[in-house]
């Protein structure tokens, strides 16, 4: 069986999510990787060096610069006949165009694959991770998005060939206007070794500086937030951890002033070590924490900064 992985990238760098997806794909068959972008040769070369990749397909065209779903889906459908499975990371990148691919091929899609049971059977979370379903698809081509935290990153060391594929052009249906990021230069929330997140208890935008200071003292530590903190305007949406937002599973997750709504737990409960700091001893976050500290975060954060 041949499997196609759709690479996530920003035209310069291959995103770590692609490496997790390649590991999932390797359980199903020989892996080819599609790099569709604009001036994306560096990404194609990086993908060719990943262990387990047989071939990299590069579609280099302005139409693919911003991963518009309409353009990507048409290209992937064109390539689909060579493959038994097509995989992409299950994040705002993969979830955007993969269902479009599935519908054009008249097949279903399986979202958030946690485990490959067999070539047609997979485990996935439902009800915000409160139940795990084992599902089987009867479709000829399996379209899967992969929960990246459930698979290790594929390592470097491969030497695949890079082959150019022709662009299918621009659909003319949609166009990119702008991307406003938080401009964060810290570690990537989705793939960092540690995460420290603030919740409603942070009480203001300015107080997030306290979180930043602690993060700076921990090796490879990204900053996150609960939905409540984002809704309150303390921090921008790209920091949100949870069912809507990013799913993370770092070695260390520190939840500060976060009560622990189901939707937040869904985004972090697979972290290796969970620390909860909250002045409410009944906060449900303590039910999943390895270490709980019932205290005022405005005392604890400066203390942590000093002790680290």
């Amino acid at each position, binding site marked *: 069986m041949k499997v196609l992985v759709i690479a996530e990238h920003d035209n310069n760098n291959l995103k770590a999510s692609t490496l997790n997806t390649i590991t999932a794909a390797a359980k199903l068959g020989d892996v080819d990787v599609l790099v569709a972008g604009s001036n994306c040769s560096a990404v194609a070369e990086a993908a060719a060096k990943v262990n387990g990749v047989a071939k990299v397909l590069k579609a280099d065209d302005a139409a693919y610069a911003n991963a518009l779903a309409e353009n990507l889906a048409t290209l992937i459908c064109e390539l689909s006949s060579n493959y038994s499975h097509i995989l992409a990371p299950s*994040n*705002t990148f993969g*979830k955007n165009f993969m269902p479009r691919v599935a519908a054009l091929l008249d097949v279903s*899609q399986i979202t958030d694959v946690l485990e490959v049971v067999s070539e047609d059977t997979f485990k996935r979370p439902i009800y915000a991770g409160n*139940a795990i379903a084992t599902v089987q698809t*009867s479709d000829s081509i399996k379209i899967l998005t992969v929960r990246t935290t459930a698979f290790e990153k594929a390592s470097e060391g491969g030497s695949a060939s890079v082959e150019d594929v022709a662009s299918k052009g621009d659909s003319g249906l949609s166009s990119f206007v702008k991307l406003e990021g938080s401009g964060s230069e810290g570690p990537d929330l989705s793939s960092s070794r540690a995460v420290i997140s603030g919740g409603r208890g942070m009480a203001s935008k300015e107080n997030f500086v306290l979180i930043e200071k602690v993060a700076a003292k921990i090796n490879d530590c990204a900053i996150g937030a609960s939905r409540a903190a984002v809704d309150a305007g303390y921090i921008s*949406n790209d920091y949100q951890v949870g069912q*809507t937002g990013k799913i993370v599973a770092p070695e260390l997750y520190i939840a500060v002033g976060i009560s622990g709504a189901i939707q937040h737990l869904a985004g972090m409960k697979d972290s290796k070590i969970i620390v909860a700091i909250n002045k409410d001893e009944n906060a449900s976050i303590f039910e999943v924490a*390895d270490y709980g500290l*019932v205290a005022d975060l405005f005392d604890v954060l400066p203390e942590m900064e000093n002790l680290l």
Partner: protein
Amino acid sequence: MKILVPIKRVVDYNVKVRVKSDNSGVETANVKMSMNPFDEIAAEEAIRLKEAGTATEDIADSIGEAKCEEVIRTAIAMGADRGILVKTDVETQPLGVAKVLKAIIEQEGINLVLMGKQAIDDDFNQTGQMLSALLNWPQATFASNITINGDSAEVAREVDAGSETIKVNLPAVITSDLRLNEPRYPALPNIMKARNKPMDTKTPEDYGVDMTPRIKTLKVEEPSVRTAGIKVESTAELIEKLKAQGAI
């Protein structure tokens, strides 16, 4: 402009779901059911577009068992004009739903579809994208802001890298994220009035669509449960424990 708001009836988001003892699914008997929260946000956005004079008609539809009429009535009580109930006893899955919606859209001459980005039961996050593919319309998923400019729309989307704005030609399918708006509560007189608003009742067969599920659920299990660890007394003790474990 005519807007269609497809709505799913799901287990209420406040309910802690329980897996059935025979592992065939989750318990839905005697459990509170509600409109999917993301669909509620889409319904609100459609009403606002009508109130602003941008839209002329706002139709709510739901596909599933007869009780789905309740969530359509809720959307009407919020401000939708009328409803379409497509009754079926089969498990609704995104591809089948998208095919029924396509048929409704073609019959009703819809120009804009506003719907939730995902349902909080199966968490698929697929139907809007599939629908726009079947229609060969553009899509704008995970919307946090929508501006209609004549025959196009500018949509801000919540993506992993921040906020992305794209322009889509109309007609289009737009799926809502959490921060698009805060849905209103329907007023009691409107809830009463909603009972008498027009509601078409159809079946998938009326639209020539085969909704047979493509995905079979073999079993449903409880996730592995994390047990609470220990409480530490001070910041110093916390740091000590984390250092001992090599976490920091």
